[in-house]
């Protein structure tokens, strides 16, 4: 089985899907000759030609909007937004067109498309190359939202997103693109959208995270385990629709929930998960669910590492839960 980085897994998923289905095509800024600024689409234009790996004008509205029309007409477009921070000029296309097309037409038209974007901090990108805007997407009915954290998941979920009949926002934590390698099957496999992964089984506390901070969450879990505790770690993988069943089953077992995300705190995925657990498991909780999140500030350059959830903050919050 080949070992791959996350970015190589993305490339492999795109390659396989384009090879499998000639309706699958890529479009975005620099995705063609350049192979993408992070090289996610490297070599694909040479292989599939400029019509199926299309360099576009520098316009997110044109990229996402054209993907809507391509999809409605029968293609399976995968649009790349160069950084999640730059999706905003294309938001009307994503929110007013892609997300609502099936609904507003009464099911007559649909937009089966994927919008890929590098997300999150950790690369000294300042506030326009570091944000985690997944809550905006999750708050818009009609979109599915995936945030991956491993090469294996990236391949299986991207392939599933391309074959899905709904518009999917596919977020790739850029700090993980080349951070780890793992074995990824070379053959065709799909992972279910909306299904979390239990990364570590445990009995004392449930740590739930997704995307970039999975790294710090797993490190914190290791430190807790070294101290004789037994944490359970869940990677949501899909944040809309998120896997309530897996999270509730875990918290019902541990009685404690710590939700970790690097997106701003207020009105976040972390808020949604902790609120739901409070509503549904109130009488089984041993402590109030807590959140460790990014802050409600624009993303700062100098405090890049401090903004994202640190192992220290995760451990401190876990201690509060365990000592409650």
């Amino acid at each position, binding site marked *: 089985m080949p070992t791959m980085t996350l970015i190589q897994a993305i490339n492999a998923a795109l390659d396989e899907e384009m090879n499998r289905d000639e309706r699958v095509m890529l479009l975005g800024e620099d995705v063609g000759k350049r192979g993408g600024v992070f090289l996610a689409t490297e070599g694909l234009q040479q292989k599939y030609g400029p019509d199926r790996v299309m360099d576009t004008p520098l316009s997110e509205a*044109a990229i996402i909007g054209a993907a809507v*029309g391509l999809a409605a007409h029968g293609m399976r477009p995968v649009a790349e937004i160069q950084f999640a921070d730059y999706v905003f000029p294309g938001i009307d296309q994503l929110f007013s067109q892609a997300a609502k097309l099936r609904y507003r037409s009464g099911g007559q038209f649909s937009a089966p498309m994927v919008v890929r974007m590098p997300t999150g901090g950790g690369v000294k990108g300042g506030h326009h190359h570091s944000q985690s805007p997944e809550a905006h997407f999750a708050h818009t009915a009609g979109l599915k939202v995936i945030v991956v954290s491993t090469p294996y998941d990236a391949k299986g979920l991207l392939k599933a997103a391309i074959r899905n009949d709904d518009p999917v926002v596919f977020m790739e934590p850029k700090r993980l693109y080349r951070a780890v390698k793992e074995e990824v099957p070379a053959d065709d496999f799909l992972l279910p959208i909306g299904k979390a992964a239990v990364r570590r089984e445990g009995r004392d506390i449930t740590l739930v995270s997704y995307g970039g901070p999975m790294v710090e969450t797993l490190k914190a879990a290791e430190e807790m385990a070294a101290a004789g505790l037994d944490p359970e770690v869940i990677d949501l993988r899909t944040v809309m629709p998120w896997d309530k069943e897996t999270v509730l089953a875990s918290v019902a077992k541990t009685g404690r929930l710590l939700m970790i995300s690097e997106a701003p705190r207020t009105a976040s995925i972390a808020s949604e998960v902790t609120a739901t657990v409070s509503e549904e498991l109130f009488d089984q909780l041993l402590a109030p669910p807590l959140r460790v999140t990014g802050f409600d500030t624009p993303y700062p350059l100098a405090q890049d590492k401090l903004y994202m959830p640190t192992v220290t903050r995760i451990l401190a919050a876990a201690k509060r839960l365990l000592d409650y």
Partner: protein
Amino acid sequence: MIQEKVRFQPFSSEPIRLIDEQGRWIAPFEHGLPPDRLQRFYRDMLAARLLDEKLVILIRTGKTSFIAPHAGHEAAQVGIAHALRKGHDWLFPYYRDMGLVLALGVPLVEIFGQTLGNAADPAKGRQMPSHPGSKALNVFTVCSAIASHIPPATGAALSMKLRRTGQVAVCTFGDGATSEGDWHAGINFAAVGRAPAVFVCENNRYAISVNISKQTASENIAIKAQAYGMPGYYVDGLDVLASYFVMQEAIERARAGQGPSLVELVVHRFGAHSSADDDSRYRSREELAAERQQDPLLRYQRFLEQQGLWDAQWANELRLEISKALEAALQEALQAGEPDPLEMFDDVYAARPWHLEEQRRLVAEELQS
């Protein structure tokens, strides 16, 4: 289809016009259309006008919540509809295109169902009136967000080109739409990609209350095409045959692989912006009265009279026949009843995820209690 010849020059300083106010054919070519076809244009324009009048009655009697009157746009809309290959080409309309979708063949029952927001609406009563759509006829369901349908029209046209389907995407919008970023984004990408698309501005010179002079400093809308590297045609949209022939040339040019065009059809808006608007607050009754003298139906009636194809008795019979069809369709739509309230949770996704199942159950319980 290879085009026989190019009849029209882009970027004219005066609007392209084939029939003058007195109804005389003033073009340097023969129209070559058989009498029944010529009469069909009139029939479709009259149907569009009578539909508009019917919609006004529906709003005044409280049967619908909203309308966007299209009276004054009939020649432009019927010209566009006749130039498309119905059910083959795609139309990306905007909210003032009820006359256009009717001429294209969207059934009256669906039009009234959409207007009533009831079970006769193929879109299940989900949107405001004046937002039609039809998968069967490739009419991309209208979205209220101004100009947001322009990049999707470009995308569909790119798909048509990539897959060599021989189709064309025709996208209509008002003059206000030309100020939106999405308008630029979509038109620029279409030109770069040589997409088989025709972008059509139904320029009635008002974006609700804002006059065209506050919308653009350009001489006209068509001239904007020059900057995008595509032809722009400045057309008298009160002239149904000018609208038709220019649209046909632009559509067949796109179909032949020669790229997109921008067509500006200058029209009048005889009504207010919508049923929620009072246009006497911003335009004089004198101005409106003068515009009403330039009724597109009247001009075309004069033309047909000169060809011996129009008389009052024929027109009256036609009016009666259309009115009957309108009333019958309206009655049928009224019978359809309300949509199932639980349909609120359908079509958000291809299948309902758990959270929508939960929310749907909540409403179902409330309805049963």
